[in-house]
């Protein structure tokens, strides 16, 4: 396990720098808090959605702009094995509501002062181990159901699938994000104006 385990200083230091900023940003948005994550699932606090949609829109515009300038730029799209994506997503959502964190926010929550995330992080490592043991039994079964392939790869993007320009999707996402944000902000202003519920 300790033969050639170190990938080298350059990638490790760059990863460390990016991780430092990532953890910092997550804490500043308070998405490292259980109450914020559950607040999103209970439709009370929309911080998670605001962070994610903004990151997707800003990130997407930049990445497709870089790709327009350099068509050889490698993308990092995960396999469209739809049954695995859906079932995995459904299981993930259950776990996220129970734990109150996802893997990234949970890791950062440890630095932010959450103590109950410690057993959660240990559980995550166990869960990954359980999956590794199950994987040999599903790799030719469940994971092959609902696979979408375009141009001999299942790492498929919406533009590849539909033969539409990515800019149509990014423009639509931007409009959707702005409209959703305006609705949320308006609703939040209204609920603040009302006196607090007495429960």
């Amino acid at each position: 396990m300790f033969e050639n385990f170190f990938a080298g200083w350059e990638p490790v230091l760059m990863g460390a720098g990016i991780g430092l900023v990532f953890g910092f940003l997550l804490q500043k948005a308070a998405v490292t808090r259980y109450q914020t994550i559950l607040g999103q699932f209970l439709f009370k606090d929309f911080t998670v959605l605001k962070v994610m949609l903004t990151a997707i829109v800003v990130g997407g515009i930049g990445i497709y702009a870089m790709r327009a300038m350099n068509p050889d730029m490698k993308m990092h799209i995960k396999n469209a094995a739809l049954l695995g994506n859906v079932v995995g997503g459904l299981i993930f959502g259950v776990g996220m509501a129970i734990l109150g964190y996802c893997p990234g926010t949970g890791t950062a929550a440890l630095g932010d002062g959450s103590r109950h995330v410690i057993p959660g992080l240990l559980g995550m490592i166990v869960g990954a181990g359980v999956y590794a043991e199950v994987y040999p039994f599903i790799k030719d079964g469940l994971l092959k159901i609902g696979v979408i392939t375009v141009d001999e790869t299942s790492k498929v993007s919406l533009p590849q699938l539909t033969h539409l320009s990515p800019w149509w999707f990014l423009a639509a996402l931007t409009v959707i994000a702005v409209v959703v944000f305006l609705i949320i902000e308006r609703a939040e202003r209204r609920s603040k104006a009302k006196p607090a519920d007495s429960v």
Partner: protein
Amino acid sequence: MKNPLMLTTWSPYVVGAGIGILSWVTFAWMGKALGTSTTMARTAGVLTGLVAPDHVYGNAYYQKYLGTAAEPKAWFEWQFALVIMMIIGALVAAKLARSTFVEHVPELWTWRFGPSKWKRYLVAFVGGIVLLFGARLAGGCTSGHGISGGMQLAVSSWVFFLAMFASGVVTAFLMFGAKGRSHV
């Protein structure tokens, strides 16, 4: 004006834009996409490997990340460092804001299930198992699939995002009900 680094919270739009820009940097400089849950799989493999290395190097899943006994792959790589430093990044952000936040049992949880620390710890442990099993089955988590995949307009990631959000909402309402909304 107060130093922005010392503010307790930033606008979620500012943080979202920051994560978006951080993704550009990760793509351009590292040729990678932000993600975290693969590191949990590597860690599980390394820990299992301490007692049963042959088993790990013979497992088709671990082979993807750790290689084989003849050709081991480096596991202390960029994402491993990223995940460890996320803890420090959040710690620095909290300390700069003079945060004294320590949470054993969240408020919403206490309201619904009582103040027992060990009950919450046990359920958090189980939640972690479920969470990572789902992430690995889907091929990623909120960062790798949701944010990085979402911005690349990946079919798999949008399917994952919608599925996980829907099931998170249903689970949260089953656990806490509409009355839980006044405790978050």
